[in-house]
């Protein structure tokens, strides 16, 4: 293809993307097909990758194909292994794809599909993909160092400390919020609880298969596990219909919370690898399969979106979570557009596998585009539901009322008609007792996914199977996030306390393991318990907290990136990271301020505490809610303060370097010529 033909092809693609975006934005009062969202996303990603990531790679980062990567220089066959770029891409995507891009867009759909979809596309292209790409490359040039190490070396000791606290905080809040999603998805659901319970014997069987019968054949054992899980889902319907067995698996939210807290502690403190490792593989298998299946389903079935582009809740009065589009849509979507957590993966395993420097573009930038596409699919899954159904599932009892008739009447009065009878029929169709007040995003996503698939694959008859498949997929995956996160948090606490007392730093010393596991589980468990007991559903306060901490971690990552860029003498290209950094600072600081000081009790933690304190009844329960509100406000304030410190320290450093008062010293590994280039030429 010659230059002119290529240019025309790209121009055509740009026009197609612009047409799709205008179709999304300008349709009013009528349904649009989900394929417009897919088309707009694909065109935007193609253009972003072809032009913007190429600009960043060439002008800002000057990717060098001649420079040996740590995977080549330090190749040890264990963690440093030069690997094919497509394989690293798959590995990196599997590591960054989590529940965030599924849950966030579902919750943000309360504003309509338009704000979410625009931020997912724009945020990914100009912020999320850039963050993942530059952090990956900078880590590759520093022998695969972690974000905390880079922050300490490039910004200063304070930077390293702030990164450490931010990472630990996000882990704690993430685990609390993630556990709450599982609780809300499984409460009063014998079918769901049974399926998840069955993953324990299935994982043990997989463990025996892979360790004894066919050593190392993980793919085979995962396939076997997947078939057994599908059988468990299929069999779950009889459990839920049995008047004898169903009560055994019908658990309330507090009971589920206690069980999950005990599970988290056991997974961190006890040697239960025979269970955890196979289940980890199983959840990855199911996750990748489900994402692929959902993508294929949307493209094949082309469902219509029933949610309007914008709802009345852009004014901040939303029932799912309170707060206006700015800043709360951006905090809520989080991972689908930019996730601070990705910077940990980009400076963790992945840089140790990169074979050639130019491949960081496809792995870092490209994998985040794929993650963003998952968020687009989650938006579609939420928006194919009738808005009344969506709000009935996602609105807490504290906002719409406990009784189905009252909740349906409240939601209908907002202009989104729904009846208690319709919701009852839907609950029956998916094999649940009720779908009212199922906050957290997971049940709405599951209903949306079941709706998409049941319209062709098996029809209404298997809608319950699809629903429980989606619930199982989310719960199983979140539980592996919980046990892995608890262990990582435990190691972080042990590493830090090891500076004070050497025995505590020994990761194999059982007293230390028990104490530090209890600390980390106690921390996220208290957030979970708070969410379970919250009359507003918990997600209203926990998800924004998670979003704020996640985006603050991205702020830290972009501070590190900007500092390195300025030290590299590329200050004129620093807006590539500086603009998303400024945007994130505006979003996170505004959101933090609202969550702390907004006078609306549904938004501000302190206003809610004041409202409770002024009520006539002052029970133990109310005192605890007041304490929780103040704790949430304190955590938000602490995170904001710490990130303000790292921003200040970074900004001072930039000024000193740019004004010539300080020598720009970067800590890159010295250049070594790659042997792969010669091999390729030869």
């Amino acid at each position: 293809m010659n230059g002119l033909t290529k240019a025309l092809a790209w121009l055509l693609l740009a026009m197609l993307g612009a047409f799709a975006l205008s179709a999304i934005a300008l349709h009013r009062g009528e349904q649009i097909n989900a394929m417009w969202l897919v088309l707009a996303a694909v065109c935007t990603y193609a253009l972003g990758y072809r032009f913007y990531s190429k600009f960043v790679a060439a002008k800002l980062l000057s990717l060098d194909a001649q420079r040996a990567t740590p995977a080549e220089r330090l190749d040890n066959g264990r963690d440093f292994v030069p690997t094919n770029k497509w394989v690293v891409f798959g590995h990196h995507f599997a590591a960054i794809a989590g529940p965030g891009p599924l849950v966030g867009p579902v919750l943000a759909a309360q504003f309509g599909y338009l704000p979410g979809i625009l931020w997912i596309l724009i945020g990914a292209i100009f912020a999320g993909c850039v963050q993942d790409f530059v952090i990956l490359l900078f880590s590759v040039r520093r022998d695969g160092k972690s974000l905390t190490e880079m922050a300490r070396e490039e910004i200063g000791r304070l930077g390293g400390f702030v990164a450490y606290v931010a990472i630990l905080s996000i882990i704690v809040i993430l685990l609390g919020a993630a556990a709450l999603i599982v609780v809300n998805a499984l409460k009063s659901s014998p079918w769901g609880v049974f399926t998840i319970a069955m993953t324990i014997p299935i994982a043990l069987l997989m463990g025996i298969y892979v360790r004894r019968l066919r050593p190392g054949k993980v793919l085979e054992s995962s396939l076997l596990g997947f078939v057994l899980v599908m059988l468990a889902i299929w069999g779950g319907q009889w459990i839920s219909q049995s008047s004898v067995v169903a009560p055994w698996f019908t658990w309330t939210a507090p009971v589920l919370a206690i069980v999950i807290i005990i599970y988290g502690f056991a997974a961190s403190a006890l040697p239960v690898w025979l269970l955890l490792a196979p289940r980890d593989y199983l959840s990855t298998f199911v996750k990748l399969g489900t994402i692929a299946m959902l993508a294929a389903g949307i493209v094949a079935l082309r469902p219509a979106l029933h949610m309007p582009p914008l709802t009345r809740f852009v004014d901040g009065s939303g029932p799912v979570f309170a707060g206006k589009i700015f800043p709360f849509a951006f905090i809520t979507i989080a991972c689908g557009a930019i996730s601070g957590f990705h910077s940990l993966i980009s400076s963790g395993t992945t840089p140790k596998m990169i074979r050639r420097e130019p491949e960081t573009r496809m792995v870092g930038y490209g994998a985040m585009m794929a993650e963003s596409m998952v968020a687009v699919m989650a938006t579609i899954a939420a928006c194919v539901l009738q808005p009344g159904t969506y709000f009935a599932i996602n609105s807490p009892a504290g906002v719409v009322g406990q009784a189905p008739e009252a909740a349906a009447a409240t939601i209908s009065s907002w202009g989104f008609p729904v009846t208690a009878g319709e919701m009852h029929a839907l609950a029956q169709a998916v094999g649940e007792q009720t779908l009212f007040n199922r906050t957290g995003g997971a049940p709405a996503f599951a209903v949306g996914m079941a709706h998409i698939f049941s319209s062709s694959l098996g029809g209404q008859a298997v809608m319950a199977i699809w629903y429980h498949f989606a619930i199982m997929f989310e719960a199983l995956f979140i539980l592996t996030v919980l046990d892995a996160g608890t262990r990582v948090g435990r190691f972080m606490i042990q590493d830090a306390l090891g500076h004070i007392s050497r025995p505590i730093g020994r990761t194999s010393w059982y007293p230390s393991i028990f104490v530090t596991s209890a600390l980390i589980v106690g921390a996220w468990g208290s957030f979970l318990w708070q969410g379970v007991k919250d009359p507003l559903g918990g997600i209203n306060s926990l998800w924004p907290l998670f979003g704020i901490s996640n985006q603050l971690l991205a702020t830290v990552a972009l501070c590190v990136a900007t500092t390195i860029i300025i030290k590299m003498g590329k200050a004129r290209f620093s807006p590539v990271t500086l603009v998303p950094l400024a945007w994130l600072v505006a979003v996170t600081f505004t959101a933090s301020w609202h969550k702390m000081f907004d006078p609306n009790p549904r938004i501000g933690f302190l206003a809610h505490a004041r409202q409770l304190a002024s009520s006539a009844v002052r029970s133990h329960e109310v005192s605890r809610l007041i304490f929780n509100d103040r704790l949430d406000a304190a955590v938000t304030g602490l995170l904001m303060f710490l990130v303000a410190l790292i921003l200040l320290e970074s900004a001072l450093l930039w000024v000193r370097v740019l004004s010539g008062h300080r020598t720009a010293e970067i800590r890159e590994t010295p250049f070594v010529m790659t042997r792969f280039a010669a091999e390729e030429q030869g």
Partner: protein
Amino acid sequence: MSKARVGADVLVCPVERSSVPRRGHPRHTAWLRHAAAILLSAAREIFDESAYARFLRRTQMASSPDAYAAFRQEHEALKARRPRCC
């Protein structure tokens, strides 16, 4: 094509992208086979089968329950500190 160490023996990248279609193997079939090989390699890397193969080669052990137990012990120490993304 270079001898790409595709996660060690992960593969095997067996298909060369020739511009000249071979008899019985039209170009699109070759492309499909190449894509399938890459997908399988990625799956083997994600599910640690390649890491196990590298372990066997490095330690010069044959695959057995004992070898796999030794691999798990080494691998889990590395894996335990990896966060799971949100």
